[in-house]
């Protein structure tokens, strides 16, 4: 491949990707059932057709858990620079980080009290 040079390699990868995509599409069309009837396209729920669309806006129950996780995840990010200055600053940095974590923990306790961590 070295004789192609860096630009040539990139071009070869690009062409190969295009060919792969077109080839897979042709293969998909060839394997696909030609035309499904309306009852054949319906998801199976025991033999009765659905009455409404499956496009449905529902409550993402895990969003509070996701937010709590995110809060602690970002806190870990703050801890890296803190760990660097901790050696120099000592006790005061320890207290500051304790306050920071305490505030976050209050948030978790609040979410818990609001029953946000219950699934159903």
């Amino acid at each position, binding site marked *: 491949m070295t004789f192609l040079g860096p630009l040539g390699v990139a071009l070869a990868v690009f062409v190969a990707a295009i060919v792969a995509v077109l080839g897979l599409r042709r293969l998909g069309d060839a394997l696909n059932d030609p035309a499904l009837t309306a*009852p*054949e396209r319906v998801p199976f*729920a*025991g033999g*009765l057709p659905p009455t409404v669309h499956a496009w449905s806006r529902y409550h993402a129950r895990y969003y509070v858990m996701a937010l709590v996780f995110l809060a602690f995840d970002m806190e870990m990010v703050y801890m890296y620079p803190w760990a660097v200055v901790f050696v120099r600053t000592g006790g005061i940095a320890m207290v500051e980080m304790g306050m920071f974590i305490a505030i976050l923990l209050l948030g978790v306790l609040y979410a818990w009290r609001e029953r946000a961590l219950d699934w159903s």
Partner: protein
Amino acid sequence: MRAALARFAAGAPVPVFAVAGAGAREAVQDLRCRAEVRLVETPGAASVLLVAGAIPDSLAEPLARVHDAMSHPRATIWWPIGAPRGEALAAFPDLRLVEDDAMQTIVGVHRELLSGRRRSEPPVLPDVDPAPWRGVGPYGQGGSGMTGGTPYGRPMAGLGSDRDGLRLDVLPLRVGPFFPPFPAGLVLEAKLAGDVVVEAAVAPNPLAAGPLPRTAVRPGLRPFLRALVEPVGVAELELARAREHLRGLADALATHQLPSLGRRVLRLAARVGPGDAGLVRDLARGVSWTQLLRWSTAGVGRLARDALAGLGLGPVARAAGLAEDARLDDPAYRELGFEPVVHRGGDAAARWRQRLAEAAQALDLAARAGARRTGPVGRVESPRGRLEPSSAPTARLLPLVPGLLPGLEWGDAVATLASLDLDLEEAAAAEVQ
């Protein structure tokens, strides 16, 4: 190359979607223990649709929908098991009939399908959209605005309030009558907010719509129906009870994704005899030791003792601490010193512990019964509770379901229904006695 691949594929277990009508539950269940077939949970994964037993005419359209949901190549096999060919199968032109050995027919049809000797079946239902939508609306998608009209043929779900005070979609869902985890014929009309059931209703029993002759009832039920009209040997009745409980558990284990344990229970159900209570107790210890069933059933679908009092709901009532049992009124059982087994809790886990304990007790009773026969007729304790002509335990239990399911996640709702061991066939047979 193609022929070699087809030969290779034909050697694999046949993916079968089985529809068990009246009289066919045991026969279809026993297929789980056979290596030649694999019972799949959706028709999309099957190449053979096995229709067994009597399918009422009112279920013709759902059966056709099951057929059309299969992917190609597909074939339909009818296994009558004594039932006449009804209207439900009239629309299937290429139906293959099981003459003697079902397994041979299934494997043979699958080979023919893969080798191209048998044509894949065309759809049964016409290609008609559920509602006209093409060309309607600003983009021809059938809708207008965010949720108006019938985009792509179906209306959008309606709004309902969520527990967080939000207004979100509530999805109405009709599940059944051929949903594998449910008993054949059960249609649950649920409303779901996300994965939580907010409302539930049960459609009328389709099996009870037409006459269900005694000969069309599955063998495991026949002793109990016979005991309604004549004295029956206690040993026969109790052995049938133990087998029914074990078969019910085997179905539930398959629903709980524990198929190999389910097969073990099925094999045990086929071979237990009077005096094998030890085997059932070993199984009960094994099931409770592994905790497999307990994780998914503890605290699920709790029925209060007071709600069950007087309904004669057999193991469901006794699992909630009620010592109700029609056998207590029978002199033959009194002579044997029969005392009902009772558990506490009333949840799905307690119901399964109860049924296993009752299966072991039934085998004990069968061993000691000798030639004793049941005394009073017109009333018998079936594996599901007090069975009387025109009053089956399932018919009395179904009205409790709409109050039991709301608030449960969908998986727990299915586990709850499995633990109630509903039997629409028994209910239909009791109605026509």
